[in-house]
């Protein structure tokens, strides 16, 4: 399995899109710190960019990669390799390559210019989001035989987690604003890895003070050590669930 992932990683690290992604993250990271005078503002800018960009790039690229690798996967499966080995190597390869691109591209500016807990949590969150969206991409690819449909499903995942879900929450908060729903909203955010990541990072910054009563409740929760670890655990679950489903589906798939 590690043999195979090694080659996937070698292949990916020479892919210009992965390199471009890394370069862009680094440029944006340093850029925000240069342009914004305050560290906190720069962090917010980076957070918003990362939450938009990381899921989009990883899910689109991974879906395309899966379909491009399809014939090669078939060739590999004609070798004495188990299906879970082949799929596992591809997942591992994608995760390691994108993880490295992220850690270098984003980690360098963050840890150089703002070495703090917020930076570490932002890095952890974006790393987890990378894993989640690669897993969702593989799920979409294995689900749909047709490339166009697979891309559609992937984009739908992205739009749902980045846009539609927030809309639903806003509607919910607006319509039920007379009731004490802060606590339920807290648990609803667990249903979206992107939002969970956003709040997890926000609560470590000064911006948390501006968020009113729900901000206070969130703040209490996410500043406890078990709140942070719990949310990271939920993010892990978000990465593991689609992986588990795709392995199950891949085992019985007609190739």
């Amino acid at each position, binding site marked *: 399995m590690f043999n195979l992932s090694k*080659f*996937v990683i070698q292949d990916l690290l020479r892919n210009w899109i992965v390199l471009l992604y890394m370069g862009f993250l680094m440029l944006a990271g340093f850029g925000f710190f240069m342009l914004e005078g305050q560290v906190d503002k720069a962090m917010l800018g980076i957070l918003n960019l990362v939450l938009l960009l990381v899921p989009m790039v990883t899910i689109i690229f991974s879906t395309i990669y899966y379909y491009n690798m399809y014939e*090669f996967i*078939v060739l590999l499966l*004609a070798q*004495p390799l188990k*299906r879970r080995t082949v799929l596992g190597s591809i997942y591992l390869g994608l995760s390691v390559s994108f993880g490295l691109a992220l850690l270098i591209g984003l980690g360098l500016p963050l840890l150089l210019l703002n070495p703090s807990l917020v930076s570490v949590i932002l890095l952890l969150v974006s790393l987890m989001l990378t894993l989640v969206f690669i897993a969702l991409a593989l799920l979409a690819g294995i689900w749909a035989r047709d490339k166009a449909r697979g891309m559609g499903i992937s984009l739908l995942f992205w739009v749902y987690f980045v846009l539609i879900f927030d809309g639903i929450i806003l509607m919910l908060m607006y319509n039920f604003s007379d009731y004490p729903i802060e606590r339920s909203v807290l648990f609803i955010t667990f249903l979206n890895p992107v939002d969970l990541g956003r709040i997890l990072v926000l609560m470590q910054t000064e911006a948390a003070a501006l968020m009113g009563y729900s901000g206070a409740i969130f703040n209490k929760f996410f500043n406890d050590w078990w709140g942070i670890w719990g949310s990271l655990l939920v993010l892990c679950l978000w990465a593991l669930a689609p992986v588990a489903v795709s392995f199950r589906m891949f085992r019985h798939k*007609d*190739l």
Partner: protein
Amino acid sequence: MIRIEDLNKAFGKHQVLRGINLTFEEGQSVALIGPNGSGKTTLIKALLGLVVVKGKIWVGGSLIQGESEYRRKIGYMPQMSRFPDNMTVKQLFSMMKDLRKDLKPGDLDYDLYDAFEIDQMASKRLSILSGGMKQKVSAALAFLFDPPILILDEPTAGLDPVSNEVLKDKLKKEVSKGKLVLITSHILSDLDEITTHVAYLMDGELRFFKSLDQLKNETAESRLNRIIAQVLNQENAYV
């Protein structure tokens, strides 16, 4: 060496293979022929465990369902090959050899690798190779591990005449060594010299599986395409 019993496969409502029973032995070179959509490729994929089927398949004496180890015995050349874009030919071969650490370097078969002069394109990236060159690479890969069973899906489709002859000579040599070769092709004249048996599939059913000699006797023809035409005419006459 390969035994197939009551093999059925449906994609949704579309029945692709219907109750196939076949037995292939060592030293046979079987041409798997039939019109487009007759289930040839699906049958091959079933042998490789790439599709989930109803029925039983034994390769080398053991049931293949859910297994992967039996594929050590099989060399497979697919109809279409596509490799990772940024990988070079050399890396591809070294990766494949890495996957088969059970074999010693001396066990490898470099005949086609040398004959197709793959060393000369070793540093090229796979994405810039032409279709025919990719076919050469995947042919060399299929033979590399010297497997007792060779499965070739439309091997001659993209190859130039010279390479075609090289591949045919190699196949003849392997059959005479007692290997089992399974080939699908639409170019029957290519199959003429290399096959010993013919399996004819139509609409997912096995119409006949006979040795070439037997077919020659029955039809009094010597060329494969005439034989097939005549057999099909006879069958239609009965219907």
